[in-house]
């Protein structure tokens, strides 16, 4: 992560409500300004993550999302709009984010995470937020995050339920510890409300902010699960898997002090 830079008056005016958060202040805001976050896909989850990070004053977003806006995006993908139907999602998302925060620097790639781009995109970020629907993409991002020792926030949803956890390579379970193989029953299209993906997207954005600003206690080695049917939330400890082929040899992570 780069050294913290001072805030200017315009930035103080925008962020004055959060500058008063105990333990955050100008130091925390400056850390956000100097930080770069990779968000993999900008759908119901990632779009909300990116929007909240843009609002919070993150300095740079690295965004990866392929395809064009289709009608079925619009129940949950809050960065996409009716006006942009048929046009590239990445361009729509970039435009929306810059409307909110014109100071934001964006590197936008109109494709999803793949073998050809994963190492470079992870290398450009201080923190990664994995919001992809396909486990092949998620495993690839996990592998690169562990290899480059980058913290990664994992978030997911299904129907009215959602999960979030934060991975510090070498200190916490990685995604392959939790899910050692591609789940055969998982399908690309699954039932979900936008309010559910949005809720977990906000939590994931908060995890990224906490990691960057050294604020509070990230979900390290813990999985937060919630069910909006009953509004039941629970947190459970999770374990590294002995002999994990991805993180078995990893120790420590730059933002975790490990």
């Amino acid at each position, binding site marked *: 992560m780069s050294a913290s830079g001072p805030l200017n008056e315009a930035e103080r005016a925008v962020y004055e409500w959060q500058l008063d958060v105990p333990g955050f202040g100008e130091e925390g805001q400056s850390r956000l300004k100097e930080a770069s976050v990779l968000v993999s*896909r900008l*759908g*119901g*989850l*990632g779009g909300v993550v990116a929007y909240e990070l843009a609002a919070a004053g993150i300095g740079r977003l690295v965004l990866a999302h392929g395809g064009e806006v289709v009608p079925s995006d619009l129940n949950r993908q809050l960065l996409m709009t009716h006006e942009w139907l048929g046009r590239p999602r990445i361009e729509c998302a970039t435009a929306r984010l810059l409307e909110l925060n014109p100071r934001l620097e964006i590197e936008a790639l109109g494709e999803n995470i793949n073998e050809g781009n994963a190492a470079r995109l992870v290398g450009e970020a201080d923190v990664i937020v*994995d*919001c*992809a*629907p*396909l*486990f092949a993409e*998620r495993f690839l991002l996990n592998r690169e995050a562990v290899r480059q020792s980058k913290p990664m926030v994992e*978030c*997911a*949803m*299904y*129907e009215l*339920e*959602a*999960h979030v956890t934060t991975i510090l390579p070498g200190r916490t379970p990685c995604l392959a510890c*939790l*899910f*050692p*193989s591609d*789940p055969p*029953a*998982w399908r*690309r299209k*699954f039932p*979900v409300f936008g309010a559910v*993906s949005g809720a977990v997207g906000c939590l994931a954005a908060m995890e990224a902010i906490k990691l960057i600003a050294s604020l509070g206690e990230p979900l390290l080695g813990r*999985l937060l*699960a919630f*069910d909006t*049917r009953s509004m039941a939330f*629970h*947190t*459970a*400890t*999770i*374990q590294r*898997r002995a002999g994990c082929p991805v993180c078995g040899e990893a120790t420590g992570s730059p933002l975790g002090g490990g």
Partner: protein
Amino acid sequence: MKITVRFSAQLRAAAGEAARTVEATEGATVQEVIQEIAELYGNGFRSLLLDSEAVLQPSVLVFADGEQVLWDSPAPLRSDQTLIITTPIAGG
């Protein structure tokens, strides 16, 4: 002793209910109760939960009292304990 098992994500849909309370013998393990539960809802539910050798599918997560239970570490149950079992979910 009574054990409550809560189902999450695809398991809940396959079971058609959110939870089931079962009667387990004293000294029963988490693994034994899961193998019993696997037979209650038909093949779709069973295949989400266990492989053909009645071993937990590798990406299914099991929690007891807020801690993950690994299949290879037999975990004794206590009366009135609640288990949570979830299949993997993703973003989108």
